[in-house]
C-alpha cells in the first residue's frame, strides 16, 4: 500500500472558517463575535442581578459599566466588521459558487472514473484544496493501479494454479486409470495365484500318488529283474547242457568214424577173402560166399553208420540251433536284465522326483496362497488409493474451476480498475486516448491506418484496433498478427457490413465523448471473448471525428 502524500486535515488553522474571506477578516470576525457575545452575556447577567435587587450599588455600577463597554465595543468592532462583511458578501458568494461548480465538476469526473479530468478541474481550486484533491486523486489512482497490478498477479497466479491443477488433474486421471489397471491386474494375479495354488495342490496329490505308484512299480521291477536273472541262469544251464550234448555228439562222431573204419576194413577184408577164395580154387568157393556175406555185412554197417551219421548231423544241427538260441536268449535276457535294471533305476529316480515334485508343489501351493492373501491386501489398498486419487482428481478439478473463477474475478477487478481513467500508461483508457491523439495528426485515412497498425503491432496484448467515423463507417481495421496468426478473420470490407453505431462502445463514446470500457463479450472474429476499450478521436479543430476501439482477448489480458 502506498500512503497518500497529503493527509486531509480538517482542523488546520490555515483553512478560513468562511471560504472566500481574507485572513484578517476572519480573525476580526472571531474577535468581534467574541466581544459581542461577552458583552451581551454580561449585560444579561447584570440586568438580572439588578432586577432582583439583591446586590450593592457598586455592582450596579459595574454591570452598567460593562454594558456600556459592550455597547462601545460593538460600535467599535462588531458593527464595522459586519458592515464590511455585508459589503463583501456578494463577491464572496460568487467566488463560492465558482468553487462549488468546480468541485461538482471534479466530483462528476470522479464519479465517471476520469481522474485525469477530475484533476484538471481540481487544479483550478484554491491551492490547499487543490493540493488535497490532487492528493486524494493520486491516492485513488495509485490504489487503482495497485488493484490493476494485483488483479493481474491474481489472474497470473490463478492461471498458474489452473495449469498446475490441470496438470495434476490430468496426472491424477492417468494415475487413477493406472491404479484401476493395476487393480485389475492384481485381481487377475490373485485369481491366477488361486488357480496356481489349486493346481499346485492337485499337482502335489498327483505327485504323491505317482510317488506311491513309483514305489509299487519299483518293487515290481525289482521282482521282474529277479525273474529275469533266474531266467538267465536257467538259459545258461540249458546252454551248458547243450554244449555238453555237442561234446557228446563229437564223441559219437568219433565212434561212428571208428565203426566206419572197421566196416571199411571189414569190406577190404571180405574182398581179400574173395580173392583168397579165388586163389583157393574149388575149395574156396564156400569161403567166397562167406566173404561175400561179410562184404555185405560191412556194407550194411557202412550204411547204418551213414544213417546214424545223418541222424547225428540232424541232432548236432538241433544242438547247435539250441546253443545259438540259448546264446541269443542269454543275450536277450542280459539285455532285458540291463533294461530292467535301467527301468528300475529310472522308476526309482522318478519316484524320488515325484516326491520332490510333491514337496515343491505343496510349497508352491502355500506360497501362492500367501501371495493370494497379499494380492487381496494389495487390491484393497489399491482400491483405497483409487478412491483417494478419484477424490483428489475431483478436488483438483474443483481447484481448477476455482482458479478459473479466480481468473475471471481477476479480470472483473481488472476491468473495474480499468474503468478509472488514470494518468498512467497502464490505464487502457489513457492509452487509447493517447492513441487517439496520435491519430489526430493523421491527414489521410491511409496515414491513420498506418499509424493504427503500428500502434497495434507494438502492443502485445491488443488483438485488434479499428476506427469508425461519426457515421459508424469503419475507416481502419488492423490485426495484431502476432496474436491472430493465420486464423481466418474478417476483412475491412466484411467488417464494414457491421453497423458500428449499434455497438455499445461506439454509442457510449459518442454519447459521453470520453473513453469507455465494455464488459467481455463474444468476439465477432472468433469464438473467444474480448473486451473493448474505446476513446473519442478529435480533429485538429477539436471536432469529434470518430471512435477508436481496441479489442483485448480475455485469454491474454494479463499481459496488460
Amino acid at each position, binding site marked *: 500500500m502506498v500512503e497518500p502524500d497529503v493527509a486531509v486535515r480538517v482542523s488546520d488553522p490555515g483553512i478560513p472558517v468562511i471560504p472566500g474571506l481574507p485572513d484578517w477578516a476572519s480573525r476580526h470576525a472571531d474577535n468581534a463575535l467574541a466581544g459581542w457575545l461577552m458583552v451581551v452575556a454580561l449585560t444579561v447577567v447584570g440586568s438580572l442581578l439588578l432586577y432582583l435587587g439583591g446586590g450593592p450599588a457598586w455592582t450596579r455600577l459595574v454591570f452598567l459599566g460593562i454594558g456600556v463597554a459592550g455597547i462601545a465595543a460593538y460600535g467599535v468592532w462588531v458593527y464595522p466588521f459586519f458592515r464590511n462583511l455585508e459589503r463583501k458578501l456578494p463577491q464572496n458568494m460568487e467566488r463560492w459558487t465558482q468553487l462549488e461548480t468546480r468541485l461538482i465538476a471534479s466530483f462528476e469526473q470522479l464519479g465517471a472514473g476520469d481522474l485525469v479530468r477530475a484533476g484538471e478541474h481540481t487544479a483550478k481550486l484554491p491551492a490547499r484544496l487543490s493540493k488535497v484533491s490532487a492528493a486524494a486523486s493520486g491516492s485513488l489512482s495509485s490504489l487503482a493501479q495497485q488493484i490493476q497490478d494485483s488483479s493481474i498477479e491474481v489472474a497470473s497466479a490463478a492461471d498458474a494454479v489452473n495449469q498446475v491443477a490441470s496438470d495434476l488433474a490430468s496426472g491424477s486421471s492417468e494415475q487413477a486409470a493406472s491404479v484401476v489397471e493395476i487393480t485389475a491386474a492384481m485381481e487377475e494375479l490373485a485369481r491366477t495365484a488361486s488357480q496356481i495354488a489349486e493346481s499346485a495342490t492337485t499337482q502335489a496329490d498327483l505327485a504323491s500318488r505317482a510317488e506311491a505308484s513309483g514305489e509299487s512299480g519299483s518293487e515290481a521291477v525289482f521282482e521282474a529283474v529277479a525273474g529275469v536273472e533266474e531266467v538267465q541262469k536257467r538259459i545258461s544251464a540249458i546252454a551248458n547242457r547243450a554244449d555238453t550234448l555237442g561234446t557228446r555228439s563229437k564223441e559219437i562222431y568219433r565212434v561212428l568214424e571208428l565203426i566206419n573204419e572197421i566196416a571199411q576194413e571189414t569190406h577190404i577184408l571180405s574182398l581179400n577173402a574173395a*580173392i583168397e577164395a579165388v*586163389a583157393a580154387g574149388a575149395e574156396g568157393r564156400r569161403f567166397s560166399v562167406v566173404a561175400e556175406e561179410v562184404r555185405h555185412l560191412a556194407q550194411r554197417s557202412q550204411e547204418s553208420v551213414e544213417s546214424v551219421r545223418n541222424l547225428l548231423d540232424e541232432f548236432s544241427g538241433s544242438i547247435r540251433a539250441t546253443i545259438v538260441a540259448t546264446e541269443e536268449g542269454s543275450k536277450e535276457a542280459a539285455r532285458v536284465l540291463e533294461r530292467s535294471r535301467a527301468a528300475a533305476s529310472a522308476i526309482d529316480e522318478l519316484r524320488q522326483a515325484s516326491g520332490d515334485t510333491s514337496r515343491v508343489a505343496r510349497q508352491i501351493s502355500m506360497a501362492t496362497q500367501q501371495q493370494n492373501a497379499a494380492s487381496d491386501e494389495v487390491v484393497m489398498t489399491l482400491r483405497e488409493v483409487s478412491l483417494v486419487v478419484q477424490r483428489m482428481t475431483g478436488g483438483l478439478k474443483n481447484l481448477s474451476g476455482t482458479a478459473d473463477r479466480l481468473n475471471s474475478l481477476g479480470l472483473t477487478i481488472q476491468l473495474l480498475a480499468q474503468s478509472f481513467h488514470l494518468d498512467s500508461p497502464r490505464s487502457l483508457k489513457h492509452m487509447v486516448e493517447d492513441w487517439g491523439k496520435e491519430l489526430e495528426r493523421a491527414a489521410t485515412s491511409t496515414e491513420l491506418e498506418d499509424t493504427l497498425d503500428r500502434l497495434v503491432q507494438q502492443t502485445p496484448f491488443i488483438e485488434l484496433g479499428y476506427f469508425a467515423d461519426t457515421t459508424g463507417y469503419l475507416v481502419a481495421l488492423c490485426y495484431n498478427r502476432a496474436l491472430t496468426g493465420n486464423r481466418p478473420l474478417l476483412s475491412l470490407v466484411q467488417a464494414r457490413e457491421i453497423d458500428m453505431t449499434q455497438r455499445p462502445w461506439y454509442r457510449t463514446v459518442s454519447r459521453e465523448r470520453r473513453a469507455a470500457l465494455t464488459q467481455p463479450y463474444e468476439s465477432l472474429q472468433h469464438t473467444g471473448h474480448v473486451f473493448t476499450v474505446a476513446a473519442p478521436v478529435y480533429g485538429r479543430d477539436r471536432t469529434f471525428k470518430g471512435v477508436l476501439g481496441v479489442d483485448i482477448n480475455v485469454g491474454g489480458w494479463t499481459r496488460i
Partner: protein
Amino acid sequence: MIAPATPSNTPDAAGRMGGLSTGSHLLVQAGEYVCALPLVSVRRVVRALPVHPLPGSAPELEGLAEFGGEPLPVLNLARMVNAAPGANPAYPVTVVVWAGPAEAREIMGLSVDAALEVAEVPPASVVGGGGGFLLGEAPVAGRVVRVINLEALGRES
C-alpha cells in the same frame, strides 16, 4: 620181388579159377570211372600204402611203396585210364595185382579211390577196346565198367 604166379591162378577148362569163373572181376573206383580188374590177377587189397615218389618217373607211376618187405611200384589207375580226378576218396586203397604176361608177370600196386565189390563180367559182354590195357567196356549191374587187361600192363609200361 613178388614170386611168379602159381598154377592155382591158371584158369581151368571151364574158364574158372579157384571155384570162380574167369569172368570174376574186382570193381574199383578210379576217378570218374569204375574199372574191372580180373580177380585172378588181384593179389591183395590193402589200405592205401604210403608211397615214395620217384623223381623223373612217368606220371602214372606214383612211386614206390613197401609191401611184404619188398618194394612195390604203385601206378595210378585213374591216370592210366585217363579218368578225370574225382572227389577226395574216403577210403583209398591199393590193389596189389599180377601184371604182365603170364610168363613174366610182376606184382604191382594200383592206386584206386575205392574197392567196390566182386562182380561177374562175362567176356562176351566186353565190347570195344583195342585189346590192350583197356580191354573194353561191359555193362555190370546197370552201369558201364571199363575192363582192364592186366597182362597188357607189363608190355605197355
